[in-house]
């Protein structure tokens, strides 16, 4: 079948973007999008740059956006794409600088951020540098995350990266999960680990929008993993001071009254002795007051005592 490829050509090193180029390729229906790319490069345009390695969906090298959806070219069939659209449009993945055409900068995208989360284990002293047996139960989830391709598709869908490229991203957080949940790092080592995970641009910069859960080709649910690391942080003590104040105030408010005291939350998050921080809130507070949006007196809810009892019991059992 005759297939139209529309490829976003970019060559920043040699003078910037050159826009979309169109190619006609004759391919069998069961060919992959990658087969077409290779045919174009072999027969029509040897300057076309794209990345591929295993050609069987196990390395994650060939991630691109196929008709706006980030996928692997080696596992996507032409017939499936053309069923839904008349042409095959290929763009590089988002949230990342492009080196040329469909090839993006893996250093900035993945490797620098992976390096920033200390992707190696520093076991406690009790684990002598010999073989250490850990239980299957403890390692089941951890081992799953070891199957991450580091393809970057989770970061590609991230809602934070388009406005803050310095965010470490869901990919690096999945890597963190592998070490946070490993029983061999505990005590002081666990403390050090959580400091790394909770660094600025790390754990607490995620908006928990669950976008990444739907993007991972390995089904590793990066967003859920991030929330599980946060549950660990609650247990270990939150290392980010401002976030710690925010969560403590939130929980305390629900514990004391049954529901959230928004006014108190905003002030306690800033810190009651942080005059500069509190002053910064003033314009927003004035605007809210003028519009009748400032919450009124915060009354205790009926049932608040039961809610307090439940939260205190749950806190004790952590």
């Amino acid at each position: 079948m005759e297939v139209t490829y529309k490829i976003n050509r970019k060559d920043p090193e040699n003078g910037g973007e050159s826009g979309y180029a169109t190619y006609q390729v004759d391919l069998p229906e069961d060919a992959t999008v990658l087969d077409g790319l290779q045919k174009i490069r072999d027969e029509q345009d040897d300057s076309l740059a794209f990345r591929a390695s295993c050609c069987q969906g196990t390395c994650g090298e060939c991630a691109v956006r196929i008709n706006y959806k980030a996928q692997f070219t080696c596992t996507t069939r032409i017939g499936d794409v053309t069923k839904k659209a008349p042409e095959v449009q290929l763009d590089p993945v988002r949230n990342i600088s492009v080196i040329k055409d469909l090839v993006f900068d893996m250093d900035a995208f993945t490797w620098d951020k992976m390096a920033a989360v200390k992707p190696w284990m520093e076991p406690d002293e009790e684990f002598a540098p010999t073989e250490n047996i850990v239980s299957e139960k403890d390692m089941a989830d951890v081992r799953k995350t070891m199957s991450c391709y580091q393809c970057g598709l989770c970061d590609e869908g991230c809602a934070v990266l388009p406005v803050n490229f310095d965010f470490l991203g869901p990919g690096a957080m999945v890597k963190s999960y592998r070490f946070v949940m490993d029983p061999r790092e505990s005590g002081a080592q666990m403390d050090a680990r959580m400091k790394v995970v909770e660094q600025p641009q790390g754990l607490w910069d995620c908006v928990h929008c669950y976008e990444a859960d739907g993007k991972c080709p390995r089904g590793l649910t990066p967003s859920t993993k991030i929330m599980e690391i946060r549950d660990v942080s609650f247990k270990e003590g939150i290392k980010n001071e401002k976030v710690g104040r925010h969560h403590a105030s939130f929980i305390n408010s629900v514990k004391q009254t049954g529901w959230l005291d928004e006014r108190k939350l905003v002030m306690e998050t800033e810190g009651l002795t942080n005059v500069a921080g509190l002053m910064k809130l003033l314009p927003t507070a004035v605007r809210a007051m003028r519009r009748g949006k400032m919450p009124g007196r915060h009354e205790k809810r009926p049932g608040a005592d039961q809610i307090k009892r439940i939260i205190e019991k749950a806190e004790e059992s952590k």
Partner: protein
Amino acid sequence: MKYAFYPGCVAKGGCPELYSAAVKVAEKLDIELEEMTDVSCTGAGCMPTQLSDPINARTFAKAEQMGLPIMTICSTCQGVFSQANHRLQDPEYREEINREYLADEGLSYQGTTEVTHMLWVLFEDYGIEKLQSLIERPLNGLKVSPFYGCFIRRPGNIMVPTKEVGGRRTYLEDLTRILGAENVDISGKTKCCGFPILTANEEASLGMVSKHAGESKGNGADCMVTPCPLCHLNLDGNQPRAESQKGEKIDLPIIHLPQLVGLALGFDPDEMQLSRHIVSTKAVNDKIDMLT
């Protein structure tokens, strides 16, 4: 048609206009609401599941006693509730929560409470044709950007189970159209509004406000509509700060879902308390005035 009404903290706090609009609209549609007053905040993702699951199980047990499904008007409440309810379908986990936390109060959750958002209610329970037949003021000419935000859409397997319900992915667009308004699409309509990282990274949070509201304005919208008061707090309440950060005026009114429905049902902007928004809704009010 009756629900255990769970307005959430923000509708009773920083967005009182959402609460009153929802109540007025429900009354007009003859949807009976029995407000749950002795239940807790959901935790809103700010409490670890270890603390929030037990208090949410308590809320579900209370609704179960009332024999009513819960209706929320907040995507964040809805998201946290849906995920908690999903976990509590595991009988072993549910029994543990019942035994450890609810039994002392003589409560027990059997796992049968349905939790649904007002947006879903209109389509799945009330019937959109019925709503259409009650429209007194079609919002002709009003250009609206639907903004879902994240929690009413994801995790997909829980929030938009495609096999059971086909249309949850387009309810806001469908509703806007049915109310007579024109859809103005933006690329980030299912992305986060930025509210959850206001504490950890204010600059990025405000950057999201500029991105979404700015794109909507640039595409010619008169306003944005959202089913989530936390999206509203950031997109409306922090729009002036996002403007200062970017050095660009945006000036886009952000309308709560029940307010938009209310306007089409014949309520005036004052009755829907549009005057309580931070960003002036004058552009919307003027168009509504022309329709009446």
